[in-house]
Each structure stands twice: as C-alpha cells, then as structure tokens.
C-alpha cells in the first residue's frame, strides 16, 4: 500500500460535522416532486407536428438536434445557371414567403446521432 507521510493530526480539534437528517430529506423530497412534475410537464415549445412538446420530448430534441429556431430558417439557394425565369421565380417566392409564426419548435422525429 502506497503511503505518503502526512502532518500530525489532532482528533480533539477535528470538526465532527454533524449531519442533520431533515435538510437532506426535504431536498430529496423536492427532487422527487420536481422529477414527477418534469415527466408530466407540457412545455410552451411547439412541435413540428402541432401541439406542445413534453419536457422529455424537448430534452430528446436537444440530444438529437431536433430544435428548430425560426431565425435559423434560411431561404432556398438561388437556382443555378443563367435562366432568368427561374431566377425571377426564386426572387418572387422569397418575397412572398411569410416569416414563420413560431420562434422555436421541436422536431420529435429528429435522429441526428451527434448534434455536437
């Protein structure tokens, strides 16, 4: 057994660190209540399919890159080539495209294995 020489100790001066039962018990009880609340918690975040996301769905979306932010939604790229009609159609579609009426939503079907 590896031993490292240590300075002398004085057990008489040592802090006994009395542990009370109730703070830990109450904190654990609050933890249990919060966990149950979380499992049944319907968040204010919408899902892609409509309706609100459960908290478990929200957490799952974090882990599978399923969060969609409205400010992150980009317009489609312009058409390739020198076709002026296609270019004009793309510009018109972009003008007519309405801003999404949501700020953030959850794609419950997202399955990106590594969001980071």
């Amino acid at each position, binding site marked *: *057994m590896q*031993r*490292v*020489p*240590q*300075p*002398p*100790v*004085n*057990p*008489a001066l*040592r*802090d*006994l*660190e009395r*542990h*009370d*039962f*109730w*703070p*830990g*018990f*109450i*904190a*654990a009880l*609050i*933890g*249990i*209540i*919060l*966990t*149950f*609340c*979380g*499992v049944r*918690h319907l*968040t*204010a*975040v919408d899902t892609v399919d409509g309706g609100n996301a*459960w*908290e*478990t*769905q*929200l*957490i*799952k979306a*974090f*882990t*599978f890159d399923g*969060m969609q*932010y409205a400010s*992150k939604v980009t317009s489609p790229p312009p058409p390739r080539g020198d076709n002026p009609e296609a270019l004009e159609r793309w510009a018109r579609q972009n003008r007519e495209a309405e801003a999404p009426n949501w*700020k*953030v939503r959850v794609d419950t079907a997202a399955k990106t*294995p*590594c*969001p*980071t």
Partner: protein
Amino acid sequence: MECPVPDCKQRQPNELGRKLKRARPWVQTGFLGVWLAPVGQWLHGFPSCVFHCYSCPLSSFACPIGIAANYAALIPVTLEIPYLLLGVLLLVGAASGSLACGWACPFGFVQDLLGKIPIRKVALPAWVGYTRYAVLLGLVILLPLILGFKGIPYGDQVISICRLCPAGALEAGLPASAQSVMAGHGWPMSWLKTLILVAFVGSALFIHRPWCRIFCPLGGLLALFNRISLFHLRFNPKECVECNLCRSRCPMGVNVDQKVNVSGCIRCLECSTCGALEPCFAVPKESSKPALPK
C-alpha cells in the same frame, strides 16, 4: 516529511475499507451497463446524474450538462424551467452528494483507469476546485444564455460546453472518427476537440481525475450537497489513532483529517480504510446510522 506516528507503516486498512476498495472498480464497471445500454439512446428524454455525452452511440440517458446548456440557450426565445433536470440532480445530490462521481460516473472511471498507470502524480492545491463553478456559471449557463442557440461561431457548433468537452471528444468524437478513418474518409473531429482529448488523456496520467477536480461542473454541483446529503461520511474520534491514513489515501487531495464532507470530495470512500471515517446515513434522531456493516 516524516510521519509522526511510530507504527504508521505497519498499520493496515480495516476490513470495510478493504471491501469497498475492492468493490469500487466492479461497481463502476456495472454502472457502464446502465449508461452504455446495449440498445442505446432509449432514455434520451431523461437526464442522467453522471457526466456522459449523449452523442455517444451507446448512451442511454441525456447528459445533464448538455441539457442545462440547451435550456440556457433557449432562454432568449422562451423561458422553460428544467423540472426534470433540477429534480434528478436535487434527488441524487440530497440522497448521496457526490457519491455518483466516485462510484457511477463513466468519465470518472476512465480517469481512474488512466490514473492507475504508475506515473508520479502531481498534487493540486485545493482552490482549483472552485474553477468548476466558473465553468458551470460561465460556459454552461452564461455563454449559451448570451449567445443563444448560435453559440460560439466555430464550424457548426452551437453549444459552447459541448464543443470544449473532453467527454464528448472521448465518447462520441473518438468512435466516430475511428469509424471514419477505417472507412477511408479521414479524421472528422475538429483539431480543437482532438487537442482537448490529447491534453485530457495526458493530464490524467499525471493528475488524479483532472477533469473532476478542475473543470467538472456536474461534480461541482453534486458536491455542494455533500454537507447535507443523507449519505455521508462520519468521523469517529474513538477509532482515530492519529495515523493519518485517511488523508494519505485520499486521491483528491482533501484534508480529510480536518473535514471530510466538503466540495472537493468525490465520495470514493478510500479514506474509510482507516476505520475512523465511516460511511453513514443520516437518520431522524441525533446520530447517523452506519451505511454498511463492518
């Protein structure tokens, strides 16, 4: 420094301490079966209580730190209270403090294994433990809160702590990169994350549990409960023969001869080998009840 106890070298660990020391690697291995479920990812909607990347192909639960950072990034858009995350951490912390760090955390287990390589370890001052709270406040809460989902503008990364996390590099980046190299597609992990991984492995050879001691925001959070948790360590002055075995056995450099239920402790219970420190449960009466038979 000479040890002041004359028969210091002859003193042997007590039976309970020996048993705990033998059992710990097996318990840690057993918990790998929980965190690395063979079916993988089936409980990703639920936070775990240990530091384990949810991008790992076999992770069964979600990383609590990744969840916290994502919730913080959500605040500029909509305020959501993470009931599940708070509940799990409060429950685990209040019940056992940082016991999960010492006995269940897969990333801690990796560091324990790396630490077994016989290289002289560097001692760290106790104050380095406070940087864990700076990481928690700065990288996990404030940075995503300020930058939102955009995160630090670096490649496709969105959450700052995940980008810098060595657990992500080891458990998710390394398998994916190895797979990519074997398929002939090159090394996809960013140079920054690769560098972090190399630095982490290197430091784990010279410092016992460097991530846990210096950076781990989850360990820092759970350790805050050490003072009130139901499971705790109790000092029995009648058993103390001033051999200081408890302190010399502590791999985390905690001055357990002065105070043991502190934030630097990971509850590995190595200090209980001396017999004067015993793992206990708090009971409604005045004294605690020993958690394990001697």
